[in-house]
């Protein structure tokens, strides 16, 4: 079994290049902020950023000037309000203009599925009566070849690289994820390269003891990165809670571009790696995010000789 472990710095240096289409997925949960920050530190440019919910990580990346385009379905700070830096880029071109290509959630999911399974398009019951197809010509209506009725379709999406955060993987990249799985599996299979970032590296035997939980096989994984708390301020089910305090604070910080630049200076450029970021956050704050245990009842797969 090949050992695909890399440092986050090396994984980003090797697999994320200027001009690429990059997907850091994770629906509220397991958003790999560590990777986003490393991309900012390595000063990548002209990226197309892909995510259903751009969240704070893409707000920070857009403010840092790494992106020229965004493909997405929900542009908000969930439960708080706007993504102010992305709005500034869209409304005022600060720090640079940002092209938007937008879908609904299911449209994005369908694009990943079509991309992963090499289908020419994905049909869905959405967009009828909406203005969305009018502003995004990639959303089209075609005739159902069986009934003749119109149906909406979206094209395949194949990111150059997908970055997936999860609870655990073995050194070959066999990855187990639980809690909200979002569209992590679909985007991983759709991408050309995949970086998996995990809270824990475990033995292959641990993975094999619970194969139902393996969402991404090592077969498609290019790099495995061990980065505990790598999803902060989003969360990892069973490992740490969402740091809602930062999501609320970001609304204030991000109101002004200079404040965002200062924040990036302090928390991204000023922290050479994730360990330095965590040290700045402090052990006490991280400890407060640890949930009490709530283990599942064990399942028995049976031994068959």
């Amino acid at each position, binding site marked *: 079994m090949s050992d695909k472990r890399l440092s986050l710095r090396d994984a980003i240096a090797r697999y994320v290049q200027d001009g690429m289409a990059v997907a850091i997925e994770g*629906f509220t949960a397991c958003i790999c902020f560590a990777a986003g920050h490393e991309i900012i530190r390595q000063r990548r440019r002209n990226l197309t950023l892909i995510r259903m919910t751009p969240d704070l990580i893409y707000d920070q990346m857009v403010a840092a000037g790494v992106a020229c385009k965004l493909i997405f379905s929900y542009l908000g700070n969930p439960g708080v309000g706007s993504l102010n830096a992305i709005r500034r880029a869209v409304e005022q071109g600060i720090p640079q203009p940002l092209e938007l290509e937008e879908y609904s959630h299911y449209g994005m999911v369908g694009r990943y599925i079509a991309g992963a399974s090499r289908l020419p398009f994905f049909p869905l019951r959405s967009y009828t*009566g*909406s*203005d969305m197809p009018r502003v995004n010509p990639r959303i089209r209506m075609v005739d159902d070849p069986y009934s003749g009725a119109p149906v909406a379709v979206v094209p395949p999406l194949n990111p150059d690289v997908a970055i997936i955060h999860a609870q655990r993987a073995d050194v070959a990249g066999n990855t187990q994820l639980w809690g*909200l799985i979002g569209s992590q599996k*679909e985007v991983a299979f759709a991408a050309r390269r995949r970086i998996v970032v995990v809270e824990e590296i475990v033995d292959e035997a641990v993975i094999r003891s619970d194969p139902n939980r393996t969402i991404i096989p090592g077969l498609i994984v290019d790099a495995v990165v061990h980065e505990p708390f790598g999803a902060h301020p989003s969360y990892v089910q069973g490992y740490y809670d969402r740091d809602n305090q930062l999501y609320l604070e970001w609304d204030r910080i991000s109101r002004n571009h200079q404040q965002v630049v200062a924040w990036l200076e302090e928390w991204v450029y000023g922290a050479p790696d994730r360990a330095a970021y965590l040290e700045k956050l402090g052990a006490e704050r991280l400890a407060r995010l640890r949930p009490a245990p*709530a283990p599942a009842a064990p399942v028995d797969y049976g031994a068959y000789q």
Partner: protein
Amino acid sequence: MNYTASEMMIVAAARALAGVRTVFVGVGLPNIACNLARRTIAPDLELIYAAGVYGARPARLPLSIGDPTLVTGATSIMSQADLFGLYLQGGLVDVALLGGAQIDRFGNLNTTVIGDYARPKVRLPGSGGACEIAANARRTFIIMRLTRRAFVERLDFVTSPGHLAGGDSRARLGLPGAGPALVVTDLALFDFANPERAMQLIAIHPGVTIDQVRAEVGWNLRLADHITTTPSPTPEELRVVREELDPEGIYR
């Protein structure tokens, strides 16, 4: 007992979920209304979240609709491919609660832009799942504050289809769900129970006048034959909202 207009709105939305089996929960006000309903009038209500959760039993009111408390103790967690494909498109959502920045008289919603799409005055979050939820849920309830800025004659952008141009225009386009059935605001309630499928006033909240409602609606408002007054929130409803669901008063 004193209460705010927001609390009245949340309580009225929760009460409308009596007898409903499955509800698709959105971010913000819908989230608190659905959780209030499950803790009061609709104990068998199953909460479905776009994050891929069926049968959530949140121990706290989540700030986001992807909070870990939605996972622990839920009936089922699934991929979003399954959530949107098998549950929503499969027809298993009885009611979905939606909101928006703008609504028109036929219950069409805008959550995308204020102003021109290419040069927006305000860039809003966009669809999320709302476009397919509005199409596929059996019925939708809309919850939003009643203001002239929001209740407009013409939307700047149609994100999610309601009754489209009214009449049978929605059915003619083959949308699977029946569309908006109720609009819950901080001042009044509206439905669409007429052949034109146009929003009509059915109830005002205590202390609100019909003229006050008219003043906040950007078109010539239609009145139902009988307009009732919404019963005030009960002490128990207010206790659940204030002590259990929103102790910090974010939605007050």
